[in-house]
């Protein structure tokens, strides 16, 4: 990644409840890339995502677009990150459209019933991008898991932020919907957004990501293109597995194969 970095972190350290979760993580990521963040359970992936979004306190420096994250007020931070947490939780049976419209909250559109034309267009764009217009008026609690994940993604896209942070957006989805979500994120990255995706699916990471970050016990131990970052050595050391490796349509193919 030679272009000017959009999001950089230097010497990131996070302690949660007295336990060190992240140690000295430094990275520089550019717009237009789909970055996969992988690592075994408990490696600190979600914590890294949260600290990059400024949702938890951390030591070290984070800069977004050349500005220190810590110097930005809450509202300004919110405009810079579309954050998609695990599970796509919605606590009340609200119509899908209102959920997507909450993506405009950081821009001052706090009431989905009163969107400015600009905000309404952003909501519409996000809904069209992931094809959820047809259940605009349906309650999200009545949608299937796949449909709900698309609504959640549309909500994160509606922020129209330079960075999208998605925490296991493909978890508990069938293969068709996993591909669907990743294709949507890929398309978003292609519109010069920086997309960071936490995933356990190394196959999807290799297939869709430009850049892979490998975390192990709170440290960034490997990064690069999928083939580089997920080398045989890394697979053995970090994940303790071997993998079938190949190339198909000029994308890396990595299929976890056996434990070692």
């Amino acid at each position, binding site marked *: 990644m030679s272009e000017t970095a959009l999001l950089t972190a230097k010497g990131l350290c996070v302690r949660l409840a007295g336990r060190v979760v992240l140690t000295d993580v430094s990275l520089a990521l550019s717009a237009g890339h789909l970055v996969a963040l992988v690592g075994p359970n408990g490696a600190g992936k979600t914590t890294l995502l*949260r600290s990059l*979004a400024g*949702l938890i306190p951390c030591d070290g420096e984070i800069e977004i677009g050349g500005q220190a994250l810590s110097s930005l007020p*809450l*509202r300004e*931070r*919110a*405009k810079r*990150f579309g*954050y998609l*947490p695990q599970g796509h*939780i*919605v*606590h*009340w*049976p*609200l*119509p899908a*459209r*209102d*959920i997507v419209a*909450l*993506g405009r*909250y*950081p821009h001052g559109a*706090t*009431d*989905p*019933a009163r*969107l400015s*034309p600009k905000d*309404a*267009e952003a*909501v*519409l764009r996000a809904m069209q991008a992931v094809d959820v*217009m047809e259940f*605009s*008026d349906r309650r999200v609690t009545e949608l299937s898991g796949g449909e709900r994940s698309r609504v959640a993604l549309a*909500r994160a896209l509606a*922020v129209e932020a330079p960075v999208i942070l998605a925490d296991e957006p493909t978890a508990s989805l069938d293969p068709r919907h996993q591909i669907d979500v990743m294709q949507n994120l890929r398309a978003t990255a292609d519109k010069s957004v920086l997309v960071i995706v936490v995933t356990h699916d190394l196959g999807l990471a290799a297939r869709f990501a430009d850049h892979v970050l490998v975390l192990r016990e709170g440290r960034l131990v490997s990064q690069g293109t999928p083939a580089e970052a997920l080398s045989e050595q890394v697979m053995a050391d970090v994940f303790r597995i071997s993998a079938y490796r190949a190339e198909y349509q000029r994308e890396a193919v990595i299929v976890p194969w056996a434990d070692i």
Partner: protein
Amino acid sequence: MSVEAVTLTNADAARRRIGATLALSAFVVLLMLISLGIGPVRLSPLAVAEALFGGGSEVSQVIVREIRLPRTLLALAIGAILGLSGAALQGLLRNPLASPELFGAPQSAAFGAVLVIALGLADVRSYALPVAAIIAAFGSVFGLLSIAGRNAGLLILILSGLAISSFAGAATALVMNLATNPFLVLEIAFWLLGSLEDRSFQHVMLAFPFIVAGGAMLLSQRNAFRALSLGEETAQSLGVDVGRLRLFVISGVALGVGGAVAVTGTIGFIGLVAPHLMRPAIGHDPGRLLIPSALAGSALLLAADIAVRIIPSTSDIKVGVLTSIIGVPFFLYLIMRERRALGGGVA
């Protein structure tokens, strides 16, 4: 679909919401007129309206404006703040079984007030009473949310609420137990039942500032409740200061409930019931539910206060007793409806 089409479908829902809110407002006004007309001298709603605006006989003017208006205004305001508090707590905790009385707020406020009375620190018409009630209510809601922690489920909230309200009840009983003056004990006991009888404009002045302040604090957060539908973490990522929101809700509920309890004693279950009555018409958006829930709370308390004056009985039924008699079965019904969430360990 075009932008217009999207906005159109929205306008329908908005019209329904506004219609329901206006209809409910009209109903509240009607209940106020009925409430003002009931008493030893029965007056028709029309005669009441006339007397209110300076018409009719001088006697009916005195009856309506000086004797009955405080009671009706208190029912209006206290019902509203209880409904609003219930809706705000349900929004904050994203939980349809949240409400001030289930969290022990009125019971704690009553303890605060009883303590002040029993210690002889102030008479029943001093500002010390609402202040003590507010401090105790704040302590109970703050304590409950601290014990339950962030993202607490239904079971933890209800169990902690049960513990806190039992504790407040026991503490109140202890104060009465230790009180030496039997007349004082009787007075406290009656007042604990919750009643709007014989309230004057002094009482209105005692409660109103706190109710208005609490209500304003809760209403100021209405948009944050909406973002909170997506969970605390996502709300924070959208720019909501969740810590401040919690503090606002706790303070708003404490001010409102404390102010209310200080003049009427404990009146339960309006906060639990009001938001549920409004969801079918308004939808589940926790921000939009606030004002309709306040109106529903007013309507419920006004209706209950009319009922206790109409129901024939040898001695007066206290309005707080009536709301609990109606509210507890409703609570049981809600538990039955939510039992899957309760039993499934989702909590």
